[in-house]
């Protein structure tokens, strides 16, 4: 059984909560006591209908104000897959929340109201999914029941969106016409839309091919922790623990350790359950090396003939997530793979309008929820790949040095 992480975004008007509620309910991930509690609260508040948004909006302020404040995580499973939904609000803090939800997503589900068609928010969601390089984008055209299940409505939305998406970096784009309220094409194919020959939404989520989305080409192991038991049984054991961020490692492989540049071989790959033949993303393993080379946290194990970029001058797309604007000259703490370094902002090249994709080159700072191209210099060299090649070794976060709060997310550009 595989895991699929999906991110959704949208407002109550799009029927997103109804859609998620239906997926959860039909897959039996909602329990009777949860449903009862939602029904009770809806009645108390005087709603005309049971507001399924209450299933995901758990905080007191959210329930009182009828809004979604923060990313909520929901879980459901079918016999084929387990799904983790990062459900993000469409309006409030949209960039911050959508970037967060999309950063780990395999698939982004964008909802469109069939009566309204493509709106600014649709384009914004799609752009942020492509910026975060979510491999699969699924456009759900909802409320088809309110347009008499009209094929032309669906086709014209599809064409308009496909034209827009051609300007983005979207690897896989799909469309499903649904009615979340009536259940059309959510779990079962709908008899109301015989002209639609594709899969139902759930079937699509179960079948979309995600195996090839990981980088299995460039071996990368950022070292998290050095395992040294120093016990009588294991006096000389030294293992380098980490999560494989790319490629495949096997015993006997010639490897290089950065920053030292020393080469050695993989003596073995260990886990609690016994030796492992091959380590690949996203496994957490412990690697032993044949030579006694100096390796510590923050180092990177790669192959001599396949090394990442090593550098202190970085060029990245940065999403800014705090009120205090980002300016050239600002100092920040930066975390990349398993190391924290200090960074200084050299330049803000342009700010990108997330609704129109227009580049504002006159911008010299980034405000809350802005996205822009930034160059930075860091105190120590990082070992990185471009984000488009590797989401793990190509990403970083920025934290304020005074408050320690996470204030930005960066996606690195590289030689390719």
């Amino acid at each position, binding site marked *: *059984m595989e895991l699929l992480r999906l991110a959704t975004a949208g407002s109550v008007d799009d029927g997103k909560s109804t859609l998620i509620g239906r997926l959860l309910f039909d897959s039996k991930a909602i329990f009777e006591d949860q449903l009862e509690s939602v029904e009770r609260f809806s009645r108390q508040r005087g709603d005309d209908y049971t507001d399924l948004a209450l299933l995901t909006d758990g905080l007191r302020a959210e329930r009182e104000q009828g809004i979604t404040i923060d990313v909520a995580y929901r879980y459901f499973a079918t016999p084929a897959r387990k799904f983790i939904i990062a459900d993000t609000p469409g309006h409030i803090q949209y960039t911050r929340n959508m970037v967060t939800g999309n950063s780990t997503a395999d698939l982004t589900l964008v909802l469109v109201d069939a009566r309204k068609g493509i709106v600014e928010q649709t384009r914004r969601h799609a752009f942020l999914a492509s910026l975060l390089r979510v491999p699969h984008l699924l456009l759900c055209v909802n409320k088809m029941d309110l347009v008499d299940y009209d094929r032309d409505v669906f086709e014209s939305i599809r064409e308009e969106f496909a034209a827009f998406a051609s300007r983005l970096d979207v690897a896989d784009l799909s469309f499903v016409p649904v009615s979340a309220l009536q259940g059309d094409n959510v779990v079962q194919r709908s008899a109301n839309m015989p002209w639609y020959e594709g899969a139902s939404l759930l079937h699509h989520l179960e079948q979309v091919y995600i195996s090839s989305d990981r980088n299995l080409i460039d071996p990368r192991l950022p070292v998290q922790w050095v395992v040294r038991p120093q016990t009588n049984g294991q006096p000389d054991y030294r293992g380098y623990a980490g999560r494989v961020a790319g490629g495949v490692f096997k015993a006997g492989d010639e490897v290089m350790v950065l920053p030292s540049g020393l080469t050695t071989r993989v003596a073995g790959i260990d886990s*609690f359950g016994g030796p492992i033949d091959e380590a690949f993303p996203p496994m957490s393993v412990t690697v032993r090396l044949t030579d006694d080379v100096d390796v510590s946290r923050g180092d990177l194990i790669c192959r001599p003939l396949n090394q990442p970029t090593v550098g202190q001058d970085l060029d990245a797309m940065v999403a800014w997530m705090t009120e205090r604007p980002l300016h050239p000259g600002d100092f920040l703490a930066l975390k990349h793979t398993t190391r924290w370094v200090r960074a200084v902002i050299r330049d803000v090249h342009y700010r990108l309008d997330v609704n129109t994709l227009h580049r504002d080159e006159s911008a010299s700072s980034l405000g809350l929820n802005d996205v822009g191209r930034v160059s930075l210099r860091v105190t120590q060299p990082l070992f990185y790949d471009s984000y488009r090649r590797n989401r793990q070794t190509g990403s970083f976060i920025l934290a304020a040095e005074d408050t320690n709060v996470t204030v930005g997310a960066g996606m690195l550009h590289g030689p390719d």
Partner: protein
Amino acid sequence: MDRGRGVVGQYQLSQLQNIEAQSIHIIREVAAEFERPVLLFSGGKDSVVMLRLAQKAFWPGRIPFPVMHIDTGHNFPEVLEFRDRCVEAIGATLVVASVQDSIDTGRVVEEVGANPSRNRLQTRTLLDAINEHRFDAVFGGARRDEEKARAKERVFSFRDEFGQWDPKNQRPELWSLFNGRHRAGEHIRVFPLSDWTELDIWQYVADEHVDLPSIYYSHRRQVFRRDGMLLAVGPHVSPRDDEEVFEASVRYRTVGDMTCTGAVESGAKSPEDIVIEVAASRLTERGATRADDRVSEAAMEDRKREGYF
């Protein structure tokens, strides 16, 4: 249904292997970036699985931090016995912080009334212990599928100098890049099981042959019905005159304080039996068996804001 270890395809992990790898990554990050982490261990299934993951993270080395039990004094004896056996078997250091001590020293006052419980008092004991030992990272076994306030919580969840959680002002959490930065006196609660569901825990217990306290499995017990839950007759809980005691085959879905943790009728004798039962259940584990969450819609959020687990 293949939920477990079965091969999914070449260079492909099953969903359980996937979330296991993520949890191990989280635990190692904490050990590497914090001065004084501690792992909360109650003997409950989630904390047992968390302890197993910590063991895996540092194997063949030892777990490089102590485990701590917040002892309400109202524990199931089977669970205390299990706790000690388990900690000794893996050679970990156990810290016990006792709610009774907090009461005796006047830090908290025992609840009175119809259903007195020490559940809420634990928060003071926990925060005092964190201060006393200067713990800067505290692993908890909470899962996001448990409760709606938990569904919004970060894996690295910041606590201010008062131990408080501010749900409207959480740090964004991107990729697997966790931000544990904090000032002296503040700490981070870490939830490595965030993405695990109740079913995942049981599947893992079955696949990995994880040992659990016996009360998780079906046994005969003297119980009585209160607020739709089955409570065990014991030193800390007695039935009122109108509550009839009877013997039933029961098991526990959660193990908390004896005063507020209910049993469910069940014949499930193994983790495999329970996987089947959980998959068919129509009630959440907390809804079915925890009086502490029945106080109000936002009972968990309120307790979490104060510094609860």
